[in-house]
C-alpha cells in the first residue's frame, strides 16, 4: 500500500492508483474534464491540476500515480488561479451560445465555468479567429467544431472503445482540431453512427441530430395517425433523465407519458424483437440444415446477428467479405416500421400514407438505419423519425408532464404485446439468449436446460462471451442435429467485435452463431441513452433488463400470442415470402476508410 496525504488527510491506496482516485477515496472533489471512467487517461485538459509539495509545477491529478509520502494540496491559491485560468481558456475557444445549445445545463464545460469562472473573463474571444465547421451530414448526429474543447474524449472513444478511428486529431497548435479522414463529412467516412462519442462529449460539440420538432408537428397534425414504438433498452434508462437513479424501470409510466404526449398508438419494439427471434432463429436453423443436410457450399458460418445498425455499418466498412454471414433479418425497429404501414394499417383500417411512424431508441445509429434506402418495404419510409431516449425525456419535460406521479399503463394492441425474450434484446447477450430459448425448443421440443430459462453464460459484461449447448433428444424434423454442439459467441463494443472478426477472417472461428452489439453493454449502453455513462451505470441498467424479463408473463418469443396470430393472419410462417419481402434486407459493401 502507498501512503500519501491530500489536503492534510492521510490515505492509503493500492499501487497504480492515481492522485485523483486517492482524493475521491477521501471524498475530496477535484474537478475533471477530459477524464472519463470508460477511457484511458489523457491528462490534457489540465482542469484537475493540484499542488504537490516539492514539485516545481502543478500536477494533473488524473494522470499522476500516487507515490509514497506525497503531500498533495487541491485547493491552494496557486491551484485555484491556474484552474480558473484553464476553465476561462477553454471558454475563450468555445462558441458559448449556451442558452441556444442542445446541451444547455447538461454541459460539463458550462458546469465548470459556473463553479470556477463565473463573471467576466479576462481572456479574448478566440472563436472568431478560427474558421469552424458544423457537420450536419450524418442523419444521426451533429459535429460542431466551434463548441469543441479538444478534450479528445471522442477520439479516445472512437479508437479505444470502438477501434474505428472515424474521428482523429488533425493539425497542431491553434489549428488543431478533431477531424475525419481527409476532412470528409461524417456521412462519408467509416463512422458507424454508434454515438458513443456523443455519449462522452462534455459539451455540445457532438450531439444527436434531433427530430423532436418534426415529431411534434406530426402529433399536432390532425390528419396523421402517429404511432410510436419503444425499444427494449429505453424503459430501463429513460428514468435517469427524469430524476430517477440508474436501474429504475419506468415502462408503465413511459407508456402513459407517450399517450399524454399525443401519440395515437403506443406500441412496443419488443414485439418485433420477438418476431426477429422467430425469423432469425428459423434462418439459423435453416442455414444449419442447408449446410449439414443439403451440403450447400454457399452457406457460411458463423452467422451474425443483424439487430445493431452500428455493427452493420461496421462490418460493411471493415469486413465486407463476410456480409453473407449476416442474418438477413432487419432490426426490430425496421421490422416494426415495415409492418406498421402494412399489417397494422390494414388491421386498423388506416391509410398507410397517413401513418407517421416514430421510434424511441437507445441509439443514434437507428436514425441512420431508418434513412437507409432499403428500409422502404412498405412502399413508404418504414420509420419516419427516430428519437433517442434523451430526446423522449426532452419531450416529456417540454410537455410539462409530472413523470414521477404518472399512473403506469399498458401498451396498445396490436403490436404491443411482447415477452421477456424481447426485453432482453436490450442487454448484450440478450438476442442470443432469446434465440436459444426458442431455437432449442423448436429442435428438441423441450425448454433450454437452464434454471428458470436464464442462460447465464451469455450474460454479463465480459467483452467477449462464449457458450455451447449440446443438442440432444431432437424432434423428427431436426434429428440431423442430434448430438451436435451449438457454439455461440457474443461481443459488445466494436473493439470486442473486432476480436471475433479477426478470428473469423483467419478462418479460425469455432462458432455457429455470433451476436454482436456495437455499443458497450449492448443497447442499454447505446449512443442515445442518458448521459453520463459508465460501467457502474451500465451494470445497473443490465440488472433492470433482466428484472423486466423475470416479470413478464411470457419469456419465450414463440409463445407471444400476437406473434402466433401475425403468422397466422399475415406472414404465413417464418421466412415465408411475405416475411422476406417485409422483414429481411441486404447489405452494402463500403469503403474501409
Amino acid at each position, binding site marked *: 500500500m502507498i501512503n500519501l496525504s491530500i489536503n492534510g488527510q492521510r490515505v492509503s491506496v493500492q499501487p497504480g492508483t492515481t492522485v485523483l482516485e486517492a482524493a475521491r477515496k477521501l471524498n475530496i472533489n477535484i474537478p475533471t474534464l477530459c477524464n472519463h471512467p470508460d477511457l484511458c*487517461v489523457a491528462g490534457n485538459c489540465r482542469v484537475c491540476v493540484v499542488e504537490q509539495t516539492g514539485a516545481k509545477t502543478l500536477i494533473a491529478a488524473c494522470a499522476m500515480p500516487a507515490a509514497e509520502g506525497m503531500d498533495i494540496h487541491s485547493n491552494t491559491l496557486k491551484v485555484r488561479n491556474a484552474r480558473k*485560468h484553464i476553465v476561462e481558456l477553454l471558454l475563450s475557444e468555445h462558441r458559448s451560445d449556451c442558452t441556444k445549445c442542445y446541451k444547455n445545463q447538461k454541459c460539463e464545460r458550462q458546469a465548470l465555468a459556473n463553479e470556477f469562472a463565473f463573471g467576466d473573463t479576462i481572456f479574448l474571444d478566440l472563436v472568431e479567429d478560427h474558421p469552424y465547421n458544423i457537420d450536419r451530414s450524418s442523419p444521426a448526429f451533429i459535429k460542431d467544431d466551434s463548441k469543441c474543447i479538444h478534450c479528445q474524449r471522442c477520439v479516445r472513444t472512437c479508437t479505444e472503445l470502438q477501434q474505428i478511428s472515424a474521428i482523429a486529431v488533425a493539425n*497542431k497548435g491553434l489549428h488543431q482540431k478533431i477531424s475525419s479522414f481527409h476532412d470528409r463529412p461524417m456521412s462519408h467516412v467509416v463512422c458507424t453512427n454508434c454515438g458513443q462519442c456523443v455519449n462522452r462529449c462534455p459539451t455540445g460539440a457532438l450531439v444527436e441530430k434531433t427530430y423532436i420538432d418534426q415529431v411534434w408537428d406530426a402529433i399536432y397534425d390532425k390528419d396523421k395517425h402517429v404511432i410510436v414504438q419503444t425499444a427494449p433498452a429505453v424503459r430501463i434508462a429513460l428514468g435517469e433523465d427524469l430524476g430517477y437513479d440508474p436501474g429504475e424501470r419506468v415502462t408503465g409510466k413511459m407508456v402513459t407519458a407517450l399517450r399524454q404526449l399525443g401519440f395515437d398508438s403506443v406500441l412496443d419494439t419488443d414485439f418485433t424483437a420477438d418476431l426477429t427471434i422467430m425469423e432469425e432463429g428459423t434462418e439459423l436453423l435453416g442455414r444449419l440444415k442447408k449446410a449439414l443436410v443439403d451440403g450447400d457450399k454457399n452457406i457460411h458460418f458463423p452467422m451474425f446477428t443483424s439487430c445493431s445498425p452500428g455493427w452493420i455499418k461496421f462490418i460493411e466498412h471493415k469486413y465486407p467479405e463476410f456480409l453473407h454471414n449476416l442474418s438477413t433479418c432487419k432490426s426490430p425497429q425496421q421490422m416494426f416500421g415495415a409492418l406498421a404501414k402494412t399489417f397494422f394499417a390494414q388491421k386498423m383500417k388506416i391509410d398507410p400514407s397517413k401513418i407517421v411512424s416514430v421510434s424511441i431508441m437507445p441509439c443514434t445509429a437507428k436514425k441512420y438505419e431508418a434513412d437507409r434506402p432499403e428500409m422502404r418495404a412498405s412502399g413508404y419510409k418504414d420509420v419516419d423519425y427516430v428519437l433517442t431516449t434523451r430526446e423522449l425525456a426532452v419531450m416529456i419535460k417540454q410537455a410539462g408532464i409530472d413523470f414521477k406521479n404518472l399512473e403506469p399503463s399498458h401498451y396498445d394492441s396490436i403490436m404491443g404485446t411482447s415477452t421477456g425474450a424481447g426485453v432482453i434484446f436490450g442487454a448484450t447477450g440478450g438476442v442470443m439468449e432469446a434465440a436459444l430459448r426458442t431455437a432449442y425448443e423448436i429442435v428438441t421440443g423441450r425448454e433450454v436446460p437452464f434454471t428458470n430459462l436464464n442462460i447465464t453464460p451469455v450474460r454479463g459484461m465480459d467483452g467477449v462471451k462464449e457458450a455451447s449447448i449440446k443438442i440432444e433428444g431432437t424432434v423428427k424434423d431436426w434429428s440431423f442435429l442430434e448430438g451436435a454442439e451449438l457454439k455461440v459467441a457474443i461481443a459488445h463494443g466494436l473493439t470486442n467485435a473486432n476480436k471475433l472478426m479477426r478470428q473469423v477472417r483467419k478462418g479460425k472461428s469455432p462458432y455457429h452463431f455470433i451476436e454482436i452489439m456495437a455499443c458497450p453493454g449492448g443497447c442499454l449502453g447505446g449512443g442515445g441513452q442518458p448521459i453520463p455513462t459508465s460501467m457502474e451505470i451500465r451494470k445497473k441498467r443490465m440488472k433492470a433488463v433482466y428484472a423486466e424479463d423475470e416479470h413478464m408473463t411470457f419469456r419465450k418469443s414463440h409463445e407471444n400470442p400476437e406473434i402466433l396470430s401475425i403468422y397466422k393472419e399475415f406472414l404465413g410462417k417464418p421466412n415465408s415470402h411475405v416475411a422476406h419481402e417485409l422483414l429481411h434486407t441486404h447489405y452494402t459493401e463500403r469503403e474501409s476508410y
Partner: protein
Amino acid sequence: MEKRGLNKVDLIFEKVDPKEVLTIAFKMKRDDIIQQVLDSGLKGRGGAGFPTGLKWKYTAAVKDSEKYIVCNADEGEPGTFKDREILDKVAYKVYGGMVIAGKAIGAQKGVVYLRGEYRFMLPQLMKELESFHKLIHAIGFDFKINYCLGSGAYICGEESALFESIEGGRGEPRNKPPYPTTSGLFGKPTSINNVETLVTAMMIIKHGPESYSQLGTKDSRGSKVFSISGDTPTPGIFELELGMLVQEFVNEFGDGDTKAVQVGGASGFCVPRKKFASTVIGFEGVPTGGSMKLFNSSRSMYNVLHNYLDFFAEESCGQCTPCRVGCQQLLKGVEKVKKGEMKSTYLNELLKLADTMKVASKCGLGQSVGNAFRTIVENFREEIIY
C-alpha cells in the same frame, strides 16, 4: 558567483580515432562508464540540463532485455543549428556516444531521430553509419543504429512526443511518470540524449572526467557549442567554456550596439543590456541549448516577442489547454495592447497567464513559453505598448 570568462574550447569537433576511444569503452565496466559521466558533471545539452550520468544510471537500473538509446537530433529551437554542424563534421562521434551509452545502460538498439529539414544530410550520414557499424562490430560491440526522420513539428523534439513520432503516432507528449528511463520508446527503458551530449560523453571517456570537469562552473561543468546569430558580425558555431557572463559574450560577438540577447531560443530567456554584467550563461544563470541571438537597437522587441508567440501558437501540439489556448491568448493579447485596443495593464494579466502556463502545461513546451514572454515584457514593456 563563480565565473570563468570567455574561453574557446575544441572538444566537440576535435578529431579523434573512434576505434581507440571505443576500444577503451569496450573494456570498461558498465558502472565505470556511468561513474565517469557522473563525475564529469555533464548535464544534457538539449537545454533541460538533466545530469546525463544520472539518466544512464536510472535506465541501467531497470531490468529489461530490450532497451533503447535515442539520439535527439530534432534540432528545432529557433536560432540553434549546432547539431547540424556536429552531425556534418563528426557524426562518428555521435554514433560513438550512442554505443558507449548503449553499453552503459545495456541497450543494443539506437535510433537517431533526425529533424525532417535535415533530410538532405541523410545519405552522407548513412554512409558514415555503415562504416561505423563495421568498426564497432570489429571491436566486439553488439549495437545497431537506425535513423528516423521527423516531419517538421517542433514538439517532436520533446522526448515523449519524439517516441510517439517514431512509433508512428501523433507527436504529442505523454504523461510523466512513467519517465523514459522506465518506459520510453515502444514502452521500453530508454535513454534519450541530445546529439552534443553523446559526443561530449565520448570525449569524457577519452579524456577522463577530471579534465572535463575542470572546465566550467560547479553547476555548469564543461563546454558547450553555441549557435550564434542575429546582430553579430560573426554568426556561426562556437564552442565555449560554460560560466561566462553575457557581457563577456556580447563583448566578443556583439556589434557594439547590442541591446538584448535571447539565450536559449524561443523557449529561453531574454537578457537586456542592463543585466549583461550580472548574468552568467549556464545553469546558475540563463541555461541554453545553444541558441544565442543578439539584437541591436534597430530591432523592435515587440516584433521579436510576436515572432516567438506566433511560433509557439503554431508549434504547440494543441493537446493541453494552457499551451494550446494560452499561446493564442498571449499572441492576441500583445497584438491588442500594441494596437491600443487593450490597456497596457492587460500585460499584467498576460504575465499571470504565462505563470499558469509554466506550472500547468503538460510538457516543457508550454512550460517554457512564459520564459521569453516574461523576460521580454518585463524588460521591454515600453516597446510592447508603444
